[in-house]
């Protein structure tokens, strides 16, 4: 038997204990004259009752006891771990800074590097083949005579 379409949502909400005000009054006025909706309400209530889990057992209560203490302890452990990792990170960065200072420091102490050479001047300063004819012409030959 199918409940009336206009009341179907109200029936499930009533079965869940979530109906009040005008809608509750509307459903209450309708139910006495509608067997289908009464059956529908019973159907919803029955299905939701079956869906409910059994009451919490003693075993479950025992397992859950001390949850607050365990959660706080785990939280504190995580905080300590985070601080330890932070400390390790700080130590690592400090060590890297020291190494960098040892490697880079001496060059910094040497003062500024000489200015770079002009490539054009360097090219001109290279060795050139001598002009032998010019050298011969400008050379005075010594006449030793007899």
């Amino acid at each position, binding site marked *: 038997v199918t409940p009336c379409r206009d009341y*179907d*949502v109200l029936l*499930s*909400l*009533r*079965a*869940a*204990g*979530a*109906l*009040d*005000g005008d*809608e*509750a009054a509307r459903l209450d006025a309708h139910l006495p004259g509608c067997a289908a909706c009464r059956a*529908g309400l*019973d*159907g*919803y*209530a*029955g*299905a*939701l*009752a*079956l*869906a*409910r*889990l*059994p009451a*919490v*057992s003693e*075993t*479950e209560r*025992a*397992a*859950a006891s001390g*949850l*607050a*203490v*365990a*959660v*706080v302890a*785990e*939280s*504190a452990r*995580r905080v300590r771990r985070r601080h330890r990792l932070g400390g390790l990170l700080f130590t690592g960065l400090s060590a890297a800074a020291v190494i960098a200072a040892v490697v880079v420091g001496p060059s910094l102490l040497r003062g500024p590097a000489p200015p770079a050479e002009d490539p054009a001047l360097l090219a001109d300063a290279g060795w050139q083949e001598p002009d032998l004819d010019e050298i011969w012409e400008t050379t005075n030959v010594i006449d030793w005579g007899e």
Partner: protein
Amino acid sequence: MDEHGDGIRGSFRVIPGGAGFQGDAPPGSPDEPALVAAFLVGDDAAFGELVRRNEDLVLRVVRRFARSPEDARDLAQRAFLRALEAARRGVASGRREGFPFRRWLLRIAVNLAKNHLRDASRWTRAPLEAVAADASATAADEALARAESARSVRRAVMRLPRRQREVLTLRVDAELPFAEIAATLGITENAAKVSFHHAARRLREVAEREDRP
């Protein structure tokens, strides 16, 4: 539509604030935002109080999806620790006042339960064994038939679409008002009620099929 079910056969009792009834704050004790703020400046006792106030509620949410009581406790613990991280991030991003710890906690618990469900073998054991034990103890045909129907309906809960399952769990297991269910899941109250109705209709069909000879 408000939450009332008194006098209605088979209806649910809805406790203001949900099923965390054992953890209700005593009069004069700090409220939740104050406890979150206190914890974030190093007061471990404040977080312990937050856990105590909400542990029953979280256990009820995850219980259906756990394979054992220890599994449920583990899921609950993870939910609390993740909610704590969320609170830390919320404060770090400047949200110092009014962090909705309980809403975050429930959302995280629902998500953890959803992820836990991915392993289908996990949900066929714990809660259903309790039903089977009851049934064998009474050894009555009627009880056995009811236990079988309950088994089928609870399996159907696990096969519901995710949103319907979340709403149903928060209503049936956690006994939350629809307004809080909507706030937890980030949907409208009307959408939460519609999802619940679809879920209930599906379960009713399964139960009626089980009743047929």
